[in-house]
Structure formats: C-alpha cells, structure tokens
C-alpha cells in the first residue's frame, strides 16, 4: 500500500471513530456526567466527608468513608493528588489515605458512567466492586506494613479532623444532585419503560435517506470490527455540541464576573441537545421518522425540575460554582478525550487483531499481567483509557485482562508515581505500586473467570476468604502491637 492511501485511511479511521463517539456516547452519558461531577465538586462540602477519615475514627467507618470520599470528591487525577496530600498530611492514617487514592480514579462518577456507556454495565460494576474491595484491602495492607511510621506520623500531624463543625449539605443542593443522576439514568438505562416508543411522527424532509447513505460511505459502518456509523441525528447532535462549546466558552469562562446572556444560551442549548438525543430518529426515503420514547419524557421532566430547583432554590453562589466546576471539567478533560478518541481510531487501523488475541485473548495470568504492564507504562489522561479499552475489546482482548488494564491504568502512571512519592516517600510509594499491580492482575483474573462461566458464589467465596484472612492478620498484629505498648520512636518517616 502506498503512503498517501495509508495516510488517508488513517485519517478516515480517526475522524470516523471521533464522529461516532461524539454522536453515540457523549451526549446522554457524558454531558450529564460532567454536570454531575461539577455539582458534586461545588455543592458537597468537603469536610462533610473528610471528617470521617481521622485517625480516631474506627476502621470500619474510616475505610468505607475514604472510598466514598474518593468517588464523590475527586473527579479527575488532577484533584486526587492534592486532596490525597491534604488528607494524609492533615492526620488521616496512611490506610484510609491510600484507599482514597486507589478508589478515586477507578470509580469516580465520570469513569464509571463512561465505562458503562461505552463498554458495558457489567464491566462498570466489576470496576466499582473490585476497586472497592481492593482499595480497602490495599489500604489495610499499607497500614499494616507501615504501622510504625504511621504512629510517628500521627504524632506529628495536627488534629485537623478532630474538632470540626462541618455543616451538612443543603436539601435543595442534594435534590439537585439527585435529579441530575436521574437525568443520566433516564438517558442511558435500557429498560422497556424508557425505550418503548409512545408516539411517532414522520417529517417529510426529502433527501435524508441519500444523506444517510452518504454518511455511511464517509464513515464506514462495520459492527463486527467495533466500528459505529453516524446517523442523521448524530450530525445534528454534533452540530449542537459544537454550538454548546462556543456559547459555553463565552458564558462560563468569566462567570465569576457575573452571569451573562451566553450562559443562558449555553444552558438552553444543552437542554435542547439532551432532548434531541433522547428522541428516536430514522432516515427513510419518505422523510425523517421521529419516535418519542419514554426516556424523552423522562429527560424533559428531569430538565424541568432542574430548572425549577436551580432558579428558585439554589443561591447564585452555588449556581455559579456548579457551572464553573462543570465547565472546568469539560475544558480539562474533553479536549484530551477528543484527541484520544481520534488517535484510537488511527491506531485501530494499524493494529492486527491477531497480536492482541495471542497476548491477551484468553483469561491467563500472563494476559492479565500484560494488561497491567501496558497500563503502568502508557500514560493516558483521565478517561482516555476507556476508548482505548474499547478498541482492545473489539480487537479480541478478553474481558478479564481488559479489566486488569482498566484497573491499573488510572492508578499507576510514571507521572503519578513520582508525585505520590514526593508526598509519602519512595519506599511507601513502590510498595503501593507493587500491591496495585498484584491486585489489578487478580481483579482481571477473577472477573475473567466469571465471564468464562465460573460461578459467582464461588468467586465471592474466594474473594471473601482472601479479605477475611487479611483482616484477621491485621487484627492479630494490631493486638500484638497494643500489648507491647508504645513502639520505639526510631522508625524513619521516609
């Protein structure tokens, strides 16, 4: 094949992938997810959650609280490390701090929603559940290994968590957040109540069928290779998305100086886009066939409630913070995602499915380790790991190694290892890295075995037994330490 043709094919692969992604996945799943992330950051007071992380809190509260904090407070790796530093330096034990560090990138709302929407809810649940079990596991192990250091550390930190007059969350803010979640679920859940069409109408626009045929030629559609086409509706949505981008820039970039008309337009366009995306549209020779499924009605209802809550029950400060945080996430993550998805489309043309199938086509230890290694040495920015995983899946990777990769990639990258070691020291960091690599491999193996048909009960039994062993060892060691009394103070804090 000569070079120009190859380049053309690569470019076509990239743009096709990008267009299909924007039209199919971004709207009903990512758009609300960005707003949810913004609302969580802006409306949940941080100290409501972090006050449970103090060293005087019992373990069975502080570890789950650390995981919860991870999933609601930190939405991208950029916020995780500063928060981790804060939590650790201000007196949380190393255990809960590590649980937080592990759980946040793997199971925050954006990552889970995106994984569920693009790859499948089963993998999203596996990611959530196994991250929770292993996040707490690794936290406990780290607390056990470094318990001497931890006692010294405890004495040197101030009691930030002890005396706090943390106020709870406002009811209106909580309701707002819940309705946002409902909006997301209404748009993405595939249950018959939401997907059944309740009304249908035909718009007599001539030429849509030809337009669709042209689109199919431009973006080749081949479900067996994991490629997705672009529909007429998709084109409308991509246009709307571009308009939202421009108006948001004008409206939200300087929102701290006051609301302007552009902000209103951007919000209106967002609502319109969500409504259009939830309609069912088909191009036929007679014109556009538009059906109104249940989710359209649900999305409209949710949007109405959001408007009412935002207009009358949230203060201007809260609204401004909410919009700014959402916009900040979009600005920070979306360009990377677009570039990442484009590159994935290009790479997909180059990789031969046989390579992936030989290396990680079945659920073996080697395959899972390959997934983890790839995750550690490749650095992909927040969320880009998901389209990459999708590509591997369509090229024939087994779902087990895929999960191993998905667990390891956001946790470990050379960059984050360096930053973390600046905070907790090199020895602790590499211990942490080792455990994460081990546990990710294990997670992949377990999940892969489940996909291959091993009974769920047997697997939970193994997992439960493993965690119980860990807990027992920790408990015994703890008791011993207590019986011995105060430890010598010579332990290094490095």
């Amino acid at each position, binding site marked *: 094949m000569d070079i120009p043709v190859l380049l053309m094919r690569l470019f076509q692969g990239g743009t096709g992938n990008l267009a299909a992604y924007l039209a199919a996945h971004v709207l009903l799943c990512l758009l609300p997810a960005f707003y949810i992330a913004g609302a969580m950051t802006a409306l949940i007071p941080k100290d409501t959650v972090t006050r449970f992380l103090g060293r005087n809190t019992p373990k069975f509260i502080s570890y789950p609280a650390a995981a919860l904090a991870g999933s609601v407070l930190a939405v991208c790796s*950029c916020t995780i490390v500063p*928060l981790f530093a804060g939590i650790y330096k*201000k007196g949380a034990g190393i255990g809960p701090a590590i649980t937080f560090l592990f759980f946040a990138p793997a199971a925050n709302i954006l990552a889970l929603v995106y994984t569920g929407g693009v790859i499948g809810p089963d993998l999203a649940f596996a990611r959530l559940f196994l991250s929770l079990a292993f996040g707490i596991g690794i936290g406990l192990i780290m607390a056990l290994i470094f318990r001497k250091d931890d006692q010294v550390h405890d004495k040197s930190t101030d009691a930030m968590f002890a005396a706090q007059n943390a106020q709870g969350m406002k009811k209106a803010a909580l309701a707002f957040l819940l309705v946002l979640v409902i909006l997301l679920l209404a748009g993405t859940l595939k249950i018959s109540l939401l997907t059944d069409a309740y009304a249908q109408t035909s718009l007599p626009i001539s030429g849509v069928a030809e337009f669709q045929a042209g689109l199919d030629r431009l973006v080749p559609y081949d479900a067996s290779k994991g490629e997705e086409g672009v529909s007429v509706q998709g084109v409308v949505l991509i246009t709307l998305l571009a308009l939202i981008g421009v108006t948001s820039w004008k409206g939200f970039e300087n929102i701290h100086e006051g609301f302007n008309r552009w902000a209103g337009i951007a919000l209106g366009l967002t609502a319109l886009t969500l409504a259009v995306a939830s309609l069912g549209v088909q191009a036929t020779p007679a014109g556009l066939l538009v059906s109104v499924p249940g989710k359209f009605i649900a999305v409209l209802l949710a949007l109405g409630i959001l408007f009412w809550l935002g207009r009358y029950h949230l203060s201007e400060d809260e609204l401004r913070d909410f919009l700014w945080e959402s916009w900040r996430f979009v600005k920070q993550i979306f360009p990377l995602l677009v570039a990442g998805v484009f590159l994935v489309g290009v790479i997909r043309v180059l990789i031969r499915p046989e390579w992936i199938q030989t290396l990680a086509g079945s659920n073996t230890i080697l395959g899972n380790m390959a997934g983890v290694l790839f995750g550690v040495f490749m650095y992909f920015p927040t969320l880009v790991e998901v389209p990459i995983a999708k590509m591997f899946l369509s090229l024939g990777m087994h779902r087990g190694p895929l999960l191993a990769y998905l667990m390891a990639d956001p946790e470990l990258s050379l960059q984050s290892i360096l930053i973390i070691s600046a905070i907790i020291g090199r020895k602790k960091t590499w211990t942490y890295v080792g455990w994460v690599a081990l546990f990710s491999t294990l997670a992949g193996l377990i999940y892969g075995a489940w996909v291959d048909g091993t009974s769920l009960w047997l697997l939970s039994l193994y997992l439960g037994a493993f965690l119980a062993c860990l807990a027992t060892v920790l408990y015994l060691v703890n008791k011993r330490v207590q019986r011995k009394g105060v430890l010598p103070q010579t332990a290094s804090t490095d």
Partner: protein
Amino acid sequence: MLTIKVLGPGCANCKRLEQITSKIVSDLAVEAEIIKVTNYNDIMAYPILSTPGLVINEQVVSSGRIPSMAEVTTWITNALS
C-alpha cells in the same frame, strides 16, 4: 500593606483565584503583595484540606473553592480596617 497568599499547586482553580484576587486588588487600589504558594509542604503548613486556599495577612479566609468576587472584596476591606 496587605500580604495575600494564594495557595495552590498550579491547578486551574488556583490560577482563577489568583486572577480574581489581583483584579480586586487593582480595582480597590489597595497596596498589597500577592504571593503564589505552590510547594505542597508550604501549602500544608496552613490548616487547609484542599486547594485553592486564600490567605490574607496569614489568616486563612477560604479553602477548597473559589470565593465570589464580593466575598474577596469584603475580606480585603475588612483586613484593611
């Protein structure tokens, strides 16, 4: 003369807070020195859990969020009187 410190490792919100603060300082025509604190250990020397933090004359006035321009204006005028 005020000493205003913006605590933050250089994240988007810290930059925004610095912009807001310097705008208010020039709007009010206050004599103030704005210092960016980016080192983690220096940041954590203040009793805050998350960045960005705003410190006026060694008093932490806000942390973990971007305060509104009105709030910052009040804090600065209060610190002056």
